[in-house]
């Protein structure tokens, strides 16, 4: 199964990345090298094996769904690229 440069462009769009046309071929080649290597897993018989998604056993611990204020608005906004002093500002949506 080979991933084409067009497929890489589609994946990039899903990942919210833009890959320049002249880099697409190189990316596709590396992509295929990585996926070819990963195909090694096909050799392992995993019939009936339960997937392990986290090393921590047991259910996820949840906290009470209670709002709390730990930081000031100024602190939270301080690292934002653009604000109006009270909100995050983004380009026009509609």
């Amino acid at each position, binding site marked *: 199964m080979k991933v084409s440069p067009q497929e890489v462009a589609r994946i990039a769009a899903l*990942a919210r990345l833009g890959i320049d046309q002249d880099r697409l071929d190189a990316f596709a080649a590396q992509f295929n090298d990585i996926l070819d290597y990963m195909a090694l*897993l096909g050799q392992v018989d*995993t019939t009936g094996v339960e997937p*392990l998604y986290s090393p921590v056993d047991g259910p996820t611990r949840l906290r009470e769904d209670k709002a709390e204020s730990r930081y000031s608005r100024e602190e939270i906004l301080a690292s934002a690229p653009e604000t109006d002093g009270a909100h995050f500002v983004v380009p*026009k949506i509609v």
Partner: protein
Amino acid sequence: MSELHTMTLTGLREALAAGRVSAEAATAATLERIAAVEPTVHAFVTVTGQQALAEARALDAQGPDPARPLWGVPVAVKDVIAVKGAPTTCGSRILEHFTPCYDAFVVRRLREAGAVIVGKTNMDEFAMGSSTEKSAFGPTTNPWDPARVPGGSSGGSAAAVAAGECFGALGTDTGGSIRQPASFCGCVGLKPSYGRVSRWGCVAYGSSLDQVGPMARTVPDAALLYQAIAGFDAQDSTSVDTPVPDALAAMAARTDLAGLRIGVPREYWGQGLAPEVEAACRAALDAATAQGATLVPVDLPHTPYAVAAYYIIAMAEASSNLARFDGVRYGLRDADARELLDMYVRSRSRGFGQEVQRRIMVGTYVLSAGYYDAYYRKAAQVRRLIRQDFAAALEHCDVLCGPVSPVTAWPLGAMDADPVQMYLMDIFTISLNLAGLPGLSLPVGLGAQSGLPVGLQLLGPAFGEAELLAVAGVLERALGPLPAPGL
């Protein structure tokens, strides 16, 4: 120049507690050392000199406190871990101007223990790499040979420790990122069990794999740092609420290795291992048997599949974790975008380096509809088999031993062209992250050909850090210290 920087953390701690050295003098000596060697090593992204001196003076004003085990000790923190008021860049342009308004849990614990944070150490961008060459702020070099890599992704922390720029440091380990750079730089590095140390305040890469841990020049130094940061944190839903055994007491109690069964996995000692690495690690096993340990051959049969399973899981989790960098709340934003989607794409494409983009995209691919079962689910199944391998091996022994890396530190740029080749260099470290077990990298000598440090890896059962530190402490005393790098 003051020679304070050559002391161990443990030695400095005693001098501080006895009042022979002030916290300010220790911090000033550290900053002086940083200024002297940074042009060569480039271990730091940010040095928080004025802040550190102010903290040290405040400590001196209160006087030494025996209840605070790191009182006045200058330490460094990998730049993936939030320190209030200092930039947290993750080695990436996208976070170049991000300054968190909080301390990570581990940083809070360091401060409570009395440590002085002197700066943020360099790393592969978002911890994705095995060499610290993939930082947006330029590579760190190996203090043993500036033409070589320090290992990665916690290469800045390892190099800073080895070069005497701090007395200990925190790193993070997703697939070997504490143990491998510790090995390349001749330091001790401990990756604790998954869940033992809170990840709250650490920028996530592979959330089910990441773990924070100490890097230091000696085993007792690493144990002191570990003891300060280990423990339950309700803010991290994967933090495990079990008591933390006293590693220092375990170390004091173990004077030799009598009765210890060391498992030697056949798969870790085979082909592909550089002769000088094998020789140094074998000599360490000989030293262990001379201390009373017995060697037990064991098998970890799914080792050949670990790298593939690991990268599928790590990249999948990365593609999900790194979706939050959208140029809205923090980080870089491309100013030319006219509409929202375009702003996401432009900001992310400009802000992320190539390795990060590659991993996000492969992660997106393996999680996409139609491929999820073939890649991600399959990798998670292999992950369980790998954990079962460890469980079976540990029925026959107390700890496992193997090399950390098949080779010593390679020249800068040597792995640039072939990402798969670099991924394969993590073969001995990544299984442990998949299984969530603890691992320790111990310097066991210099390679006969390269003259560069070689690390031996000690692996153990979940939450067995105290025993690993105790065993490593005996071996360290038996083998003697490495010389200091000729920097």
